[in-house]
């Protein structure tokens, strides 16, 4: 456990800078602080902009728990609060001492008249120093057309530049050349290990339960860590603490229900959202008993409660439970899913210092039962995290905000147990892997001048692999050279990493700015999967004596420009990313039921990804939406693959276009459409064939030397809301959708095989999954 002595010196200039800012607030200034909330539901609002008319004031933005703080000298001020979708809030405050002041915002009912009233749009996107970040608006997500009408945050994210779908109808995605396992997906701070249902067709996130989604394209500030390419920070709703609300929907493949309300009015609330698919119900209608016994469904449950203990303390308890169940009669049965739980304690230490303590649990597991003769064979596996996190937000002054904290996680991976009812069967336990991952970070957001804004910080991360267990050393062919035995708690390997993060904006004018950022990210948990589509049985492994932490460095630059009084937002970003210690698989890697799984991997790969992302967005008016374009390249290099030269990664796609439009015709009708186009992914196709074992075997000459056909698709949807009636609470709406509206036959898979009609020939067969998929959903609220 040695730290490079030079690394300490990085910290010095940062510390000096922090202190110099701190001394600036030594004059008599007072702080106005409190929580920003919704007037109807009491939900805390994240990212509301709070400003005073004080000359020195740059204003503040409410944090993840709605907490804000601004400092002013003694005097009377006008306080202005601005938040998208809410009426502008202004009030007069006379400040003689530190003042606690909660802000209640009223939602803007989305009617045409109101839309035209919101003429002054803010230019936060210009001034904010954070680069490569996207905040998704839940109302927007609700209106976009999706496969089978299942609204989905992870699929909507894929419509933004730099983020690519992992495949047809898939909720998995690639960010700036990273793999889908390099995305950190957090639900109320808990990492979700398998963010999809039904093998990727739906995400685990029920949008009814979600309040806010923020995505960082590898440019995350120092409080996030653990994955190379992105962070999706998803926050659940807190629940209405004023009134009871029941809402829900009945859709083509699933039904949803959402109940929320106060436990003690204005003090505590709860929310429970549940969803279940019912495609399997149709199987029950069959006369065939074997079909009747087939199972295919998923369900999930989100629940959250919070309690305001006093003016300074608030507790939150939230959880998620989801399961997928599939079965072919008694032949093959499997279920898998995530469980997460988060207990949080918000504490306002003083008017400037906000503290959050979280205890987080996350588990992903799968169970398989295979009928074999008279007996069943059982396979179980899980990955489990226990996580303790302490974060502080220090509002030093209006121009300077500090975040710092520590985090320690215990990961335990149980690769599996195989057992049987058969007495002749010898059960196998594969060795569990235990590790501690910890981190400390500091991040400083500062307005260095009226034009220059910065967020910079440093994260120190560590992974310790601990016993008990056997750890192996391998030769290049994967043969065991040495077996090292470790006792309980003994350190097998320890990795320290410093992860500097910095992002800056330079404001050229009210309407345009330049931004730059540099980040280093480290990943210590690796998904071991050689299947192209991903499967619930893929294995997570921590770094070890063989697997080194993956490292990515990303440099990006951007130009941001708003047009027509901030009605249109334009941005152009370029990035270059270097990746080290990448992992790939040997030919025919044996990844299951193998204690020597690390002998099947290729280490020391490098990767490079670079690209240009253009986005033109219209956020207000009858017509809203965006056009995004990405030009990019992602390549990998391994000594053992492609003769050691760079080859395109599977997520390499040269062009990627998405067009999104939402048109609000009148108070009742909304139409939406999305069109996407991308270059086919890089794939390996045969360049010849030969005969072995009396069958045709294909000959491969270069890795990923071919392309799938280009993919494009148009989806459309129309929503009609029930007539607005102020006297009754009941509301409902119908949404009609059509996925792949012009019936493009996109290739999901291309298979090479002997011609079934003529065994003397070989053919290429393309599988298309979805062509013209209609959907209808009925939503209600009362």
């Amino acid at each position, binding site marked *: 456990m040695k730290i490079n002595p030079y690394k300490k010196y990085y910290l010095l200039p940062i510390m000096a800078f922090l202190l110099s800012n701190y001394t600036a607030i030594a004059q008599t200034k007072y702080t106005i602080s409190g929580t920003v909330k919704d007037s109807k539901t009491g939900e805390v609002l994240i990212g509301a902009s709070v400003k005073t008319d004080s000359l020195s004031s740059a204003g503040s933005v409410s944090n993840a728990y709605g907490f804000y703080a601004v400092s002013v000298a003694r005097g009377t001020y006008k306080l202005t609060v601005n938040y998208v979708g809410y009426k502008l809030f202004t009030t007069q405050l006379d400040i003689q001492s530190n003042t606690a002041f909660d802000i209640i915002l009223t939602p803007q009912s989305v009617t045409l008249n109101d839309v035209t009233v919101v003429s002054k749009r803010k230019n936060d996107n210009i001034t904010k120093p954070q680069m490569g970040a996207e905040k998704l608006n839940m109302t927007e997500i609700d209106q976009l057309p999706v496969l089978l009408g299942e609204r989905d945050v992870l699929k909507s994210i894929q419509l933004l530049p730099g983020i690519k779908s992992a495949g047809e109808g898939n909720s998995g995605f690639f960010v700036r050349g990273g793999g889908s396992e390099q995305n950190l997906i957090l639900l109320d701070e808990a990492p979700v290990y398998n963010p999809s249902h039904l*093998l990727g067709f739906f995400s685990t996130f029920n949008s009814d339960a979600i309040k806010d989604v923020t995505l960082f394209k590898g440019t995350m500030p120092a409080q996030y860590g653990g994955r190379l390419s992105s962070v999706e920070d998803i926050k659940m709703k807190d629940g209405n603490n004023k009134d009871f609300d029941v809402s829900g929907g009945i859709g083509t493949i699933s039904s949803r229900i959402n109940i929320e309300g106060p436990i003690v009015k204005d003090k505590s609330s709860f929310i429970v959202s549940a969803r279940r698919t019912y*495609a399997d119900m149709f199987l029950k209608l069959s006369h065939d008993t*074997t*079909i009747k016994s087939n199972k*295919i469904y998923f369900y999930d449950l989100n629940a959250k409660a919070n309690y305001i203990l006093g003016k300074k303390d608030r507790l939150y308890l939230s959880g998620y439970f989801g399961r997928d169940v*599939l079965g*072919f*009669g008694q*032949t093959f049965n499997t279920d898998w899913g995530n469980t997460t739980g988060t207990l949080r304690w918000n504490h306002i230490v003083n008017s400037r210092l906000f503290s959050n303590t979280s205890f987080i649990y996350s588990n992903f597991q799968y169970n*398989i039962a295979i*009928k074999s003769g008279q*007996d069943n064979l059982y396979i179980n596996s899980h990955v489990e995290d226990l996580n303790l996190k302490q974060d502080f937000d220090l509002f030093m002054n209006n121009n300077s905000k500090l975040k710092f904290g520590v985090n320690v996680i215990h990961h335990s991976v149980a690769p599996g147990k*195989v057992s049987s009812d058969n007495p*002749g*069967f*010898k059960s*196998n336990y594969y060795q569990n892997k235990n590790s501690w991952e910890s981190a400390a970070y500091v991040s400083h957001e500062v307005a260095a001048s009226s034009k220059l804004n910065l967020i910079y910080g440093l994260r120190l991360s560590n992974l310790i692999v601990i016993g008990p267990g056997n750890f192996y050393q391998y030769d290049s062919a994967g043969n065991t050279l040495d077996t090292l035995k470790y006792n309980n708690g003994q350190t097998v390997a320890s990795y320290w990493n410093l992860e500097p993060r910095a992002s800056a904006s330079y404001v050229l004018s009210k309407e345009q700015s330049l931004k730059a950022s540099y980040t280093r990210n480290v990943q210590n948990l690796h998904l071991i999967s*050689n*299947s*192209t*589509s991903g*499967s619930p*049985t893929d294995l997570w492994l921590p770094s070890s004596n063989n697997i080194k932490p993956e490292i990515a460095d990303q440099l990006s630059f951007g130009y941001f420009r708003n047009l027509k009084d901030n009605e249109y937002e334009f941005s152009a970003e370029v990035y270059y990313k270097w990746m080290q210690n990448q992992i790939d*698989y*040997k*030919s*025919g890697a*044996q990844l299951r*039921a193998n204690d020597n799984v690390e002998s099947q991997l290729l280490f020391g790969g490098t990767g490079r990804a670079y690209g240009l992302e253009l986005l033109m967005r219209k956020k207000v008016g009858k017509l809203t939406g965006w056009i995004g374009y990405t030009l990019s390249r992602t390549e990998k290099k391994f000594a053992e*693959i492609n003769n050691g030269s760079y080859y395109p990664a599977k997520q390499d796609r040269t062009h990627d276009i998405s067009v999104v439009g939402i048109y609000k015709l009148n108070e009742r009708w909304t139409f939406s459409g999305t069109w996407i186009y991308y270059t086919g992914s890089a*794939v*390996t*196709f*045969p*360049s*010849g*064939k*030969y*005969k*072995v*074992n009396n069958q045709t*075997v*294909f*000959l*491969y*000459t270069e890795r*990923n030397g*071919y392309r799938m056909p280009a993919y494009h698709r148009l989806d459309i949807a129309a929503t009609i809301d029930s007539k607005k009636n102020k006297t009754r609470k009941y509301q409902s709406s119908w949404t009609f959708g059509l996925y792949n509206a012009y019936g493009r*036959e996109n290739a*999901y898979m*291309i298979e*090479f*095989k002997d011609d079934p009609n003529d065994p003397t020939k070989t053919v*290429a067969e*393309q*599988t*298309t*999954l979805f062509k*013209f*998929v209609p959907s209808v959903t009925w939503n209600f609220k009362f």
Partner: protein
Amino acid sequence: MNKYFLLISLSITLFACKKIINVDLNNAPPQLVIEGLVNDVNPATITISKSVIFSSSNTFPSVSGAFVTIKDNVGNTYTLSESSSVPGTYTTSAIIGKSGRTYTLNVNVNGAIYTAISSMPALVNLDTILPDQIAFGSKILKVVTPIFTDPPGLGNYYQLVEKVNSRLLKNVNAWNDNVNDGGTNTRRLIYSDDVDSLNIKKGDTVTVEMRCIDKNIFNYMYALADLSSSQTTPSNPVSNISNGALGYFSAHTSRQKKIVMP
């Protein structure tokens, strides 16, 4: 197991459709393919052929006139002669393999030398094969379970070759003892009725040959089976033959059982 998941993901989508397409593929120059078998029952056989381009028909040119020898680790060297009836096939009745011996293959094709080494593992007997069936949705597939007992201790590798009447099934079954080490086998030989365009019926004769193979051959066969699952990025299975030849050279035990399906 991946096959199950693929099947399920495809069956989810009642909308899925398939069609034959034209793909513009590169034409790799012909490469040498050697398939060599030494077992403890029958004479050794080496088959030498060449690869062809994708658009050609499935006839693979045989390579005649090669000089083929097999040497064992107790000092014997045998020269194999080309069969006059089947060009490209080299045999000798002089070698019947023995467990524990290591065999070295040497092939000379127009001056280019290819070598490979394989050791014949200890014999594990195939006790019997039992009929069974599995239900896939509304479909019932008749299958067989080979019954054998794995010796305790990791490191036993098996290849099971299945024939229905006289037809060889395409499925490559390469098993190790990472699961159920030292236990009696319960794994069934699952085949794809689609790939083989065949369903085992009552009255069919099913023949199973169980081979005990060495680790390199297991890795090769496992990789070959993986290729046909179309779930991974494909690459050529690592051959134990030198000098870039495709194929493999395997010294293995061989035991065979037959059953008439009830």
